[in-house]
């Protein structure tokens, strides 16, 4: 009897096993087929929808065209990670940290093919300013700096420091590169930026962070168009570019975070880079022009180890402006204030930058200049801020992270009313 029962149980078990195995087979096979179909489908649709491209377009139309040309090179999967909602969550997702794609949306540059990367760069070049060491050229230099960090991390020779403090001292007048024509592309020639992920050792500085020009991300928030509202969102370590377009115009060229480590270096071909030298020099000229009394008025009692309005601090402008009011400065000093903010504003295309500079010039007398630490901008804690009704620029000197025996810079440009095109309210 027990034998009989066992046999029964056993045969029942066997049946169950067979049924189970069959089910598993069907599931796995089915899943495989579906996955195959999905992949095949995506390949087809990539070539399917073609967005309009107009090589003759100017202004925002040219940016839209370049964005479409870039999207046309992408598979539908790639488009899905590039073309995202213009939501507050997506727009404010940027960081100065080398946190790769964990803290910012968009498609990773290192995943793009040569053609796709060329189209991405063409888009950036169209949207950004053409100035020497500002705009597009500056952004490329920032990516190069991260490659320096990646190779320093991979060879662990961080102590072998690149050249020290920047020496370039070209004077940026408020008008010079803002009036530069679009044909002046000498400095904007797309240099070849290494795109591959850095060698395995390149994942830097604890916490699994990654350095290198491959870890930069491009997103289009909202559909690029000549009439709608959308945003170009590009960034990575030490970089966040946010340009908002509305009804065919740039409605905001900020927040714009730009920092750099190392502050300067010489490449293998002998070229010396100092991506923030122009930005720093403008501030040095301004603070250098202040008299002892003016300096005393401009001095802040607080200390700074970073910028105040970095990532996540949207809309948090201090209610009371601090420092010396620009209306108290001489005409020459006022010009220096405008010259000092210009490199940040020159982030965006030249026509927009010129417009913004006009606005900031009008608001100049209600603008304040303040500093903390020393005025040399060469020691941890040295800090300068320019805060107007619209413009907000901060520059801070911090200790090095990878090159510990040097300092490095963090800066941010914001606008009290134009961040993200004023599309969001931060209460």
């Amino acid at each position, binding site marked *: 009897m*027990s034998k009989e029962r066992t046999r029964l149980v056993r045969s029942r078990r066997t049946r169950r096993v067979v049924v189970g195995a069959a089910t598993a087979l069907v599931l796995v096979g089915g899943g495989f087929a579906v996955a195959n179909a999905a992949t095949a489908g995506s390949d087809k649709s990539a070539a399917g929808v073609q967005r309009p491209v107009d090589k003759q377009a100017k202004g925002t139309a040219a940016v839209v065209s370049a964005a479409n040309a870039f999207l046309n090179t992408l598979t539908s999967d790639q488009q899905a990670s590039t073309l995202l909602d213009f939501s507050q969550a997506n727009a404010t997702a940027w960081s100065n*940290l080398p946190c790769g794609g964990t803290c910012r949306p968009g498609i990773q540059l290192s995943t793009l093919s040569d053609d796709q990367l060329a189209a991405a760069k063409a888009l950036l070049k169209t949207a950004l300013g053409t100035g020497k060491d500002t705009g597009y050229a500056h952004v490329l230099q920032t990516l190069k700096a991260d490659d320096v960090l990646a190779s320093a991390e991979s060879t662990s020779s961080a102590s072998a420091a690149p050249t020290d403090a920047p020496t370039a001292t070209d004077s940026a007048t408020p008008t010079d590169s803002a009036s530069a024509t679009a044909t002046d592309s000498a400095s904007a020639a797309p240099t070849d930026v290494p795109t591959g992920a850095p060698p395995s050792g390149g994942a830097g500085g604890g916490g699994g962070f990654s350095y290198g020009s491959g870890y930069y991300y491009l997103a289009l928030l909202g559909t690029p168009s000549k009439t709608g509202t959308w945003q170009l969102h590009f960034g990575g370590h030490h970089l966040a570019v946010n340009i908002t377009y509305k009804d065919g115009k740039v409605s905001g060229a900020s927040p714009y975070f730009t920092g750099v480590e190392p502050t300067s270096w010489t490449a293998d071909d002998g070229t010396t880079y100092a991506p923030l030298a122009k930005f720093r020099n403008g501030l040095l000229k301004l603070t250098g022009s202040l008299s002892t009394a003016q300096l005393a008025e401009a001095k802040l009692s*607080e200390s700074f*180890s*970073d910028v*105040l309005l970095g990532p996540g601090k949207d809309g948090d402008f201090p209610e009371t402006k601090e420092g010396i009011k620009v209306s108290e400065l001489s005409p020459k000093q006022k010009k220096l204030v405008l010259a000092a903010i210009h490199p940040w504003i020159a982030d965006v295309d030249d026509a927009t930058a010129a417009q913004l500079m006009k606005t900031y010039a009008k608001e100049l007398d209600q603008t304040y200049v303040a500093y903390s630490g020393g005025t040399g901008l060469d020691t941890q804690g040295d800090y300068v801020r320019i805060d107007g009704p619209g413009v907000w620029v901060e520059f801070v000197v911090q*200790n090095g*992270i*990878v090159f510990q025996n040097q300092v490095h810079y963090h800066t941010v440009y914001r606008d009290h009313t134009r961040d993200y095109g004023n599309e969001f309210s931060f209460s």
Partner: protein
Amino acid sequence: MTGPRNWLTTVLTRLVAGIAIVVPAALLLGASPAAAHPMPHSVVQLDVYRSSVSARLELPVSDFSRASGIDLEDITGKTVPAAQRKAVRAYLAAHIHPATTGGRAWQVGIGAMHLSATRQTSTGPYRELTVAAVLTPPAGADVRHFTFHYDVIVHQVVTHVTLVTVRQDWANGQVDGKGTTQVGTIELDIRHMKVPALKVDLGPGSAWRGLVAMVELGGNHILTGTDHLLFLLILLLPAPLAATGGRWTGLVGPRKALARIGGITLAFTAGHSVALAATALGRLQIPSWPVEAFIAASILVGAIHAIRPLFPGREAVVAGVFGLGHGMAFSFVLAEMHLSTGQLVTSLLGFNLGIELVQLLLVCLALPSLLVLARLRVQPVIRLTGAALTGVAALGWLVDRLGLPNPVARAADSAGSHTTLLLVILTLAAVTSTAWSLTARVRSAPQGGGLRPRWRAAPDRS
């Protein structure tokens, strides 16, 4: 760690789908911390007791020196010189002001401090000042809800951020000392250029949550404490065997084997429970190394006994006596928590309950294997191999506890971290053993041949 986790569910889930837990857990652990800050931030880590809160302040030296004007940047050692120590105390006392929700000030005591090197995500290495502090509310005031006026460093370095975390909070079920929960962030309100106080709300807290957490802690303690488990299992290994002439020969029959296993387990339980209660409630300060060495020795004795019977028939007594040592070791866990007497009694109950539950579970899981193993022809090989391995581990531990760290001890300790694997193996072994003995019985009954269990040859006489 928000709700009281049901410990039993945890164990069951581990049994059923250990791997399924590991994957999402790893993903969760990999998630980036709440504050992504490129400059080193401060941490205030709280241990919440019944009537006071102890705080461990971790302060980056660079920002601390800048803010306080006390220069610690050139000190390379661990010690803060006496002159600076006094200044640090005065500075901290001026910037740490917890108060009841009604506004009555708490007392703040600043204790020991030292300097060390550390690093945070993306900051690179930097030096840190660590200070112990005790925050005490006025008599009768609520320790779980208070207003934390704290502006160390940030009153001057306005970009500085302080994370406030809780490491231990018995009444909230947070007892294992591993990991912390974030209470809040203290940073500048940039719009108003002021540092708002942090409202600390640690929830109602209850003895029940403390008890549940202690059951879980007890269960985990025996599950991950390879030494306790190994001692018990190695004593149980020869339980189904008969000792004659100083050798393990033949079988004693399943009923007797079960009685022995039950006796040994009970005696071990009695021994460690008595010692745990006495040591914990008496708040005895026992140095840990002799106890740990005693435990290692107990395992060694057990291993030798599994090879050649040293004390046949008196295993239960031995288990009880050595159990005393294991109980003292359990009490160290409780002693570290600095609990009030009421919490201690509840904790003792919960902790011991957790230990016994898991011990029972493990013995039940091991039982079929122990019985079946004894009947296999390869029994001596398995027994001797197991005993030898255990003996080597015990020797490694003994040498380590006597002051000579060695790879054997490290390897044996690390075995305790693979609890899921251990449970899966035990379960599989139990299922296989049960299935094998069932089929063996069924097959052998009519034919009287084939794969015969050996205890039919040596029938049960007990």
